[in-house]
C-alpha cells in the first residue's frame, strides 16, 4: 500500500492508530483517581509528542542513516520557529504559510551550515555543527534582537501588520488557526470517570507527523537511503564505487534540517511564541538522546524515544514530595519518610537524574535502544510459542500408550 511493503504497511498502520487514538490511549486512568497524574492525554503534551517525534524522525535520517552525528540540530528548530512567527506577524495567523516558510528557511540555512560542516566527518563534524548552533543561539539571544526579540522572544502582537487577515475585533487577541479552525479548539469527551480531550492542533500536528513518518519510510527503502547507509558503513568504498558521498550526506543533512524546521514551525503554530532557548545546545543534545534512546537507524525508534523523554519531562517532573508522601502513606511514619527521602532526588526537579540513569542503562544493556528491547521481548515470546508448538507437535506425534 502507498508503495510500502507488507511489513512497513503494518508499521504505518500501527503509527496511524497510535496517533489517532492517542487522546484515549494516553489517558488510561480515571480523572479522579490518584493515578490521574500519569495521564499524558492532554493537548499540550500530546502536541509535544508528535512535534518532537518529527524532530527525531528527521534527525534519524541524518544520524541513523549516514552516521553523521549533528550536535546542532536545535538551531534549525529555532530557525523554523522564528520563520513561522514572522509569517504570523506579517502575513496571517493561518498556520499554513508559517509551516511552509519554516521548512523552507530551515532547509536553506541547513544547506549553508551542512555545506561547511560536512567538510569534516566524525567528531569534527559534531563540533562544527555545535559551533554553528551556539552561534545561532548567541545571534538570536543578543545580536539579532530586532529580528528575534532577544531574551523576551517573539509573540504575535495586536498591532502587527498581518496583511492577509481581517482586522481583529475589539478585545480579541490573535490566535493561530487553520482557515478559522483554532489550534486551541478542543472537545472534551466525558465517559464515566474518564475525561478525553480531542484537540484540533494535536490532530493537525499528528497528521503532519504521519506524513513525515511515511516520507522517512520511503527514504529508508529508497536507493538514496541505501547509499546513505553505505556512507555510514564505508565512505572510502562509496567514493571508489563512483559515488560522490558529499551531495548524498548534504542532501540528508538538508532533509533532516527541514524536518527540524517543520517541528519548529509546528511548535509556534501550537503555542504562538518563539525564544532563543529552544536553540540552546541542551536542546540539540535532547534530540540525540531521543534518537539513541529509541533506537538509532530504526524507523519508529526515534518517535518512541521522543515520546519517552517528553513524558518523563512532563510527568516525572510533576511528582513532588507531597505526592510521594501520599504514595507511601500506608507505611509507618519512619519508613514513609525514609522512602520519600530516597525517591525525592529522582522526581520533580530531579527528573534529569532518572532520565540519566535510564539512558545509561539503555546504552549499556540495550545499545539498540527501546526498539532492541522490544525486539528481544518479542523474540522471547516467539521462541516460547514455537517451543510450545514443538512440544505439542511432539506430543501429537507420540501416540498415547
Amino acid at each position, binding site marked *: 500500500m502507498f*508503495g510500502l*511493503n507488507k511489513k512497513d504497511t503494518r508499521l504505518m498502520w500501527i503509527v496511524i492508530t497510535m496517533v489517532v487514538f492517542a487522546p484515549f490511549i494516553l489517558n488510561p486512568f480515571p480523572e479522579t483517581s490518584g493515578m490521574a497524574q500519569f495521564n499524558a492525554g492532554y493537548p499540550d503534551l500530546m502536541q509535544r509528542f508528535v512535534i518532537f517525534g518529527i524532530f527525531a524522525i528527521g534527525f534519524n535520517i541524518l544520524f541513523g542513516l549516514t552516521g553523521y552525528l549533528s550536535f546542532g540540530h536545535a538551531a534549525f528548530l529555532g530557525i523554523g520557529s522564528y520563520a513561522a512567527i514572522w509569517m504570523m506577524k506579517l502575513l496571517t495567523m493561518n498556520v499554513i504559510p508559517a509551516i511552509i516558510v519554516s521548512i523552507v528557511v530551515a532547509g536553506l540555512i541547513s544547506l549553508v551550515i551542512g555545506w561547511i560542516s560536512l567538510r569534516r566527518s566524525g567528531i569534527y563534524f559534531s563540533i562544527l555543527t555545535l559551533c554553528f548552533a551556539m552561534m545561532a543561539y548567541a545571534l538570536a539571544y543578543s545580536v539579532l534582537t530586532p529580528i528575534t526579540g532577544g531574551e523576551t522572544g517573539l509573540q504575535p502582537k495586536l498591532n502587527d501588520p498581518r496583511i492577509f487577515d481581517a482586522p481583529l475585533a475589539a478585545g480579541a487577541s490573535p490566535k493561530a488557526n487553520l482557515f478559522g479552525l483554532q489550534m486551541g479548539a478542543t472537545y472534551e469527551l466525558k465517559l464515566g470517570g474518564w475525561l478525553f480531550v480531542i484537540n484540533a492542533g494535536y490532530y493537525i500536528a499528528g497528521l503532519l507527523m504521519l506524513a513525515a513518518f511515511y516520507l522517512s519510510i*520511503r*527514504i529508508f*527503502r*529508497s*536507493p*538514496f*537511503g*541505501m*547509499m546513505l*547507509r*553505505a556512507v*555510514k*558503513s*564505508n565512505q*572510502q*568504498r*562509496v*567514493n*571508489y*564505487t*563512483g*559515488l*560522490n*558521498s558529499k*551531495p*548524498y550526506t548534504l*542532501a540528508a543533512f538538508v*532533509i533532516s534540517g527541514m524536518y527540524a524546521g517543520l517541528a519548529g514551525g509546528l511548535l509556534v503554530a501550537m503555542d504562538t511564541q518563539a525564544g532563543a532557548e529552544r536553540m540552546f545546545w541542551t536542546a540539540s543534545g535532547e534530540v540525540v538522546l531521543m534518537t539513541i534512546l529509541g533506537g538509532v537507524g530504526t524507523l519508529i525508534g526515534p518517535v518512541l524515544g521522543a515520546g519517552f523523554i517528553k513524558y518523563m519531562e512532563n510527568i516525572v517532573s510533576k511528582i513532588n514530595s507531597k505526592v510521594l508522601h501520599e504514595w507511601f502513606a500506608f507505611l509507618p511514619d519512619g519508613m514513609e519518610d525514609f522512602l520519600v527521602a530516597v525517591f525525592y532526588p529522582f522526581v520533580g526537579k530531579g527528573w534529569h537524574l532518572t532520565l540519566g540513569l535510564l539512558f545509561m542503562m539503555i546504552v549499556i544493556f540495550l545499545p539498540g535502544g527501546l526498539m532492541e528491547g522490544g525486539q528481544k521481548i518479542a523474540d522471547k515470546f516467539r521462541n516460547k510459542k514455537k517451543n510450545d508448538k514443538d512440544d505439542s507437535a511432539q506430543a501429537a506425534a507420540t501416540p498415547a500408550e
Partner: protein
Amino acid sequence: MGILEVQNVNKSFGGLKALQNVNLDIEEGTIHAIIGPNGAGKSTLLNCFVGKLVPDTGTVMFDGKSLLGIKPHEINQAGVSRVFQTPEIFSDLTVAENVLIPCFAKRDGAFTLNALARVTGETDVREKAEQMLIDVNMQDKKDMLASSLSRGDKRRLEMAMCLSQDPKLLLLDEPTAGMARADTNNTIELLAQIQERRHITMAVIEHDMHVVFSLAQKISVLAQGTVIAEDLPEKIKGHPKVQEAYLGGAH
C-alpha cells in the same frame, strides 16, 4: 597505445622516494601483473591511479585522459575499479545490497536524489546484481551481512562489486592474499573466466608467483620504486635483475 599509460611518475614521502621515474603501459584487454618485493612501491603506484595519491611529477593517462587531480569517484565513473588489499566492502549491509550499490552507481552516476524510488522496484538493477552474485557463486549468501562473510568471500564480494560496474580497467591489489590454495585457484579461475568473457583489462599486484604466472600476459617488476623489468612472463622468470631483487643477490 595502452589503455593506461604511466610516464615518469615520481612520488616521495618525506625523504623516502617511493616511486622514481616509473613508466608503465597497460595494453587493452590484457592481464598485466606488477610484482616486486615488499616496499617496492606497488600499492603507492596503484594509489596514484585511483586518485588516492597525486604523483609529485609525471603523468597518468587513462583512455587518453589524465587521471591526475581527479576525484576518486570521477575516476571510477570513467571506468577504473579497484579491489583493495584488505577488502573494502559495506560491512553493515547485506551481500545483495553490497552489489546493488555499484549497480546503481553505474546506472545513475555519481549522485541522484532518488529518495522516493524503491530499491525493490528497480528491476533492471536488481536483475543485474542477482546475475553478478550467481557469476561469483554467492547467490545463496545474498541475505547475509557482509561482515559475517569469511575473508575469502569478502574478497570475492569485493570483486563482484567492482565487476558489476563493467569497468574498463580493474585494479587488483593482492587478490589472493591470505587465501587457502583451493580458494586461490578458484580466484584464478574466476579472473581468467572474466577476462575471457568480458575482455576487461586488469592490473594485478601479487606476491604469489603461482597466481602471477597462471594469469599474467605481461609482467612488470618493481623494486625500490623503479621498474627494473617489463616483459612476457616466460622471459621474466629467468631475468637476472628480477632474481637479484627477489633473492637479494645474484645466484
